């Protein structure tokens, strides 16, 4: 039996934000010491992908672009209920900004003939939110960002989403294939089931796809093909504050009146 929809969920391994330190000598980020975790907004993407199975006969595949061995996040995805997880890895991808990254993920989604591609709102290590629209743009597919809720309409080959817009919301119907970016915290990611978790940890081994597998020309990925480059970084000086702790509301009101006249 073939599945009606193929849902590809793009996930990323990121350094634990609570664990990233700044080198006091150079002022640069020390990412290498930080523990690697699943990008937190991606849990909402995985949940949204798995919820599609409730209404549509769908296969849900997690894909992740990363260095060899960055497979723990795929294990997590499979433990949550994804049918498969695939690592996209090639030395040629190193240093990619959002342009080649979204190209690579677009080819990854296309490799599986995706009807729906789902991503988190943004990654905590770069916070651009540019990759989901980038995937859609590379392929000329529809896109739905800042999504609060999804409503599959397989009979019309459409996916309907409620999106967050400034001051309210809107409901948009998109033709397939479509790229979705789920708003961070918009759903409640399911915990991994016990049996699924045991399977993911013991028996699951993700396939690895490289640039050749995906038919990607190595000249258009990686640092050399990235339009943007980091031209430097500086530590932000924290603002000096008085830090005056008052004992009661009377004192607080008095101080406030001093500063608000």
């Amino acid at each position, binding site marked *: 039996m073939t599945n009606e929809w193929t849902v590809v969920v793009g996930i990323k391994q990121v350094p634990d*934000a609570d664990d*990233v330190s*700044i080198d006091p000598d150079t002022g640069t*980020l020390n990412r290498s010491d930080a523990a690697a975790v699943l990008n937190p907004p991606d849990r909402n993407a995985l949940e949204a992908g798995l919820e599609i199975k409730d209404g549509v006969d769908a296969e849900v595949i997690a894909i992740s672009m990363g260095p060899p061995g960055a497979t723990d996040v795929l294990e997590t995805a499979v433990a949550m209920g994804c049918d498969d997880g695939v690592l996209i890895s090639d030395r040629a991808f190193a240093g990619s*900004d*959002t*342009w080649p990254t979204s190209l690579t993920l677009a080819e990854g989604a296309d490799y599986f003939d995706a009807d729906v591609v789902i991503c988190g*709102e943004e990654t905590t*290590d*770069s*916070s*651009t*939110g*540019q990759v989901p*629209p*980038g995937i*859609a743009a590379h392929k000329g597919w*529809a*896109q*739905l*960002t800042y999504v609060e809720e999804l409503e599959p309409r397989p009979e019309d080959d459409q996916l309907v989403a409620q999106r*967050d*817009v*400034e*001051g*309210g*919301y*809107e*409901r*948009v*119907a*998109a*033709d397939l294939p*479509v790229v979705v970016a789920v708003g*961070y*915290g918009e759903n409640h990611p399911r915990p991994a089931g016990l049996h699924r978790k045991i399977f993911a940890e013991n028996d699951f081994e993700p396939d690895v796809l490289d640039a050749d597998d995906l038919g990607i*020309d190595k000249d*258009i990925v990686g640092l050399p*093909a990235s*339009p*943007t*480059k*980091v*031209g430097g*970084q*500086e*530590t*932000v000086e924290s*603002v000096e*504050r*008085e*830090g005056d*702790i*008052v004992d009661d*509301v009377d004192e*607080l*009101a008095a101080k*406030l009146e001093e*500063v*608000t006249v």
Partner: protein
Amino acid sequence: MSGGTVDIDEYEDVWVFIEEHDGDVAQVSWELLNEAQSLVEQKDSERLVALVIGEDVEDIADKALARGADQVLVADDPVFEPYRADPYGEQFRHMVEERQPDIVLIGGTTTGRDFAGRVAVPAYAGLTADCTEIGIGPDGHLEARRPAFGGDILATIKCEQHRPQMATIRPGVFEAAPPADDSDGEIERVETVISEEETLTEVLERDIGETADITDAERIVAVGGGCDGDLEPVTELAEALDAELAASRKAVDEGWIQHARQVGQTGKTVRPELYVAVGISGAVQHLEGMNDSDVVVAINNDPNAPIFENADIGIVGDLFDVCPALAKRLQDADDPQEVIA
């Protein structure tokens, strides 16, 4: 798609996208139009061009001229109302490829961040997200600065071999200038390159309430997770202080308060004279959006909350007690009878 670089000298103008919904212009558009004038001066000689996309937007084009644009390009068609990423992206991309601007600035709203990639990807442009500082470097390239890792680091992003140099800019970081009485710029209507039949999406329903603008507020009372969904105490305090209500991401994600009032990373940047943080722990992502405030007051029941290290005045206490008591004290003080008594 070609992987080559371009002759960057062929790219000249500075463009600003004017974001319009239902006849209203997003304030960030005017902020960018004002800030972009300094880029034009630093680069010397190029024009400042405003882009207006929508339906029946002639009056907005006039406003863009009054706000300093040398030229306004108008794409006026029913296909652009209400906003959708695919027709906006396609139209914008076409104009960028045809007219070759050097720099393109877009407000970092949910709309701007939605479609900017649909322009940058096919145009093979450099796109930097969520910038808080922009300038022209000694080499003539745009230097777009953006907070990284929750604001501890400010990274400078450059695009040396591709054009245009695109950036989405966080709302509220720059100031808008008032409109001038007269202007000598020109308005040009451009050809619509996309038809309804070619669109990939359909807006079924839109529900837009009153859109708050907290970026101009002189006083702000901001609420966080500590209020547990009860906005009564902070609303009361905000009224007593004649302040705008704002929120941390937590309060917005819980659905207690609209996104337009969110301060910090993925929200707005504010710089009021007075910022009162109520029940907000003070995560760096939040501090990033308000640390230019003149005076910061913290009300929190956790004495170890980081917000206290980032406040001028703090009180450790239950917000459900402190807010009403403080509101009452302030109102009493405003009442001349009380002062005399």
